[in-house]
């Protein structure tokens, strides 16, 4: 992988992304909301790192903060030792919303524009790289289609191709499959895993689905809600039996408060 060559100077033994004691707050018109409280975790190269938690645990906010859209009120986020201060093409986002593609550009132009705008590549290389990744997500036949003519799953695949074409240090995925139907979602999860087998990119993936976390992830960070705090950091299961056990374990960890409360009543 080319990105791996570019960044060869950075040792694999230290974390690629390091989140230290990050507290995030954001303002609504009436209140100041604390989204996460002193969250710590490390992502290493090649990780499929999952942020898992119920809605309201601040996992999306945390991802946006890693993306550079929101500065932590406390703690630091650093990528390859450098503190994250603003959005940049070294951390490509894949959003949940289907409108993340630029509607005035075709599939090919969308991927190419990311490379041009961020000045990652020049000239002929841009198109070659774009088509390489469009081909990887099996959309070569639709390279000249406009996004509004594509299905939801295809749009998400373009967004993934665009993110991967930039060959970022880390790919940030914010519930990318949440708006898809169940069948397409399973297919996309499989495709993402086979893409990972080929290129071994690093991904930070937000989801609220326990099965998705177990299937897609290699390491899972469990967050508790209101505000988000680290509950556990787990390895994923290797076998189907272990997956079922892990799902039960996570379910228990996420809902034990509720169970305890229910028992006290």
């Amino acid at each position, binding site marked *: 992988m080319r990105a791996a060559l570019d960044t060869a100077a950075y040792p694999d033994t230290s974390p690629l992304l390091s989140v230290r004691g990050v507290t995030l707050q954001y303002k609504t018109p009436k209140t100041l909301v604390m989204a996460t409280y002193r969250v710590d975790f490390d992502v290493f190269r090649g990780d499929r790192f999952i942020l898992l938690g119920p809605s309201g645990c601040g996992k999306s906010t945390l991802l946006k903060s890693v993306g550079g*859209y929101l500065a932590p009120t406390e703690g630091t986020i650093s990528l390859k030792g450098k503190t994250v201060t603003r959005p940049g093409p070294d951390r490509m986002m894949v959003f949940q*919303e289907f409108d993340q593609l630029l509607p*005035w550009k075709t599939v090919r132009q969308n991927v190419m524009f990311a490379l041009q705008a961020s000045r990652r590549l020049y000239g002929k290389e841009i198109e070659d790289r774009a088509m390489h990744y469009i081909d990887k997500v099996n959309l070569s036949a639709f390279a000249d289609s406009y996004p*509004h003519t594509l299905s939801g799953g295809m749009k998400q695949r373009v967004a993934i191709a665009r993110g991967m074409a930039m060959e970022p240090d880390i790919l940030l995925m914010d519930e990318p499959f949440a708006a898809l139907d169940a069948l397409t979602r399973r297919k996309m999860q499989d495709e993402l895993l086979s893409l990972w087998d080929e290129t071994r990119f690093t991904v930070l993936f937000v989801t609220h689905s326990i099965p998705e976390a177990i299937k897609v992830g290699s390491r899972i960070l469990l967050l508790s809600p209101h505000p988000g705090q680290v509950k556990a950091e787990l390895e994923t299961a290797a076998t189907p039996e272990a997956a079922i056990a892990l799902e039960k374990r996570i379910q228990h960890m996420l809902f034990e408060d509720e169970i305890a409360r229910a028992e006290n009543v």
Partner: protein
Amino acid sequence: MSDMLTHGGSGHRKQAAVVPRSEVVREPAETREFSVVEKPLSLFERLYNQAWIRKVVILVLLAGVWEIYGRWLNNPLLFPTFSATIEAFFRSIASGELPGKAWASIHVLLIGYACGIALAAVLTAAAITSRIGTDFLETMTSMLNPLPAIALLPLALIWFGLGNGSLIFVLVHSVTWSVALNTHSGFLSVSNTLKMVGRNYGLRGGRYVLQILVPAAFPSILTGLKIGWAFAWRTLIAAELVFGVSAGSGGLGWFIYENKNLLDIANVFAGLFTVILIGLAVENLIFRVLERHTVQRWGMQS
């Protein structure tokens, strides 16, 4: 997925229904067994589906009604017939008078339109970069948008004298506010996701505005341009009618005014006809084509 994994636990739901039934698995029928999958529509239906054909039919009917009423009234001083108007129209075109006047109007209009858009761009740029700019634009727009441009003409005549200066002033006023208002509201309605995507690419400042905000807000910008054009065209003709009397060359408004004074009513109608034709041409040729190649192709407007 979760229901798949927990399926084993729900076995007790598999109780037999009242009537026992066997499972059914079928192959889909061969395509050649269907008599019709797709069939072209009839010629009339296809013609009727064309909007321009329907509109031409309406225009022909209107022209017919006009001709019949004109002949029945038989008073060319009040209401010339359609054929007399068309005749006067082609006579004025052949003599070069009408094209000359039309060009004089369009020339002033284009200058005013361009200046108005430039001013709108500056105001909108100020509005998206600072909060005070937003307040300025909102206050100015709410104050000046309802003010008819033609009401400023007496003032313009004092400031800029007779001639194109005054015309351009009122034109700028009629274009700027609608374009600025629509562009600004377009920028505000650009989805948060698209904005985040643009910043993810590392775009900032002018490149961010030109490459993300402008295309994303293009439907609104186009609407603003269309409204601005319609306002400008009306304002111009009205302004020419008011003070065309003393302007040397004069435009279409002056042509209408002059022919009214000569009691050549067929020519007055020909002048009005030209005003309509130019308005239609710009709407249908320029803006429609622009729309088809941009917002419609991008699926931002059906």
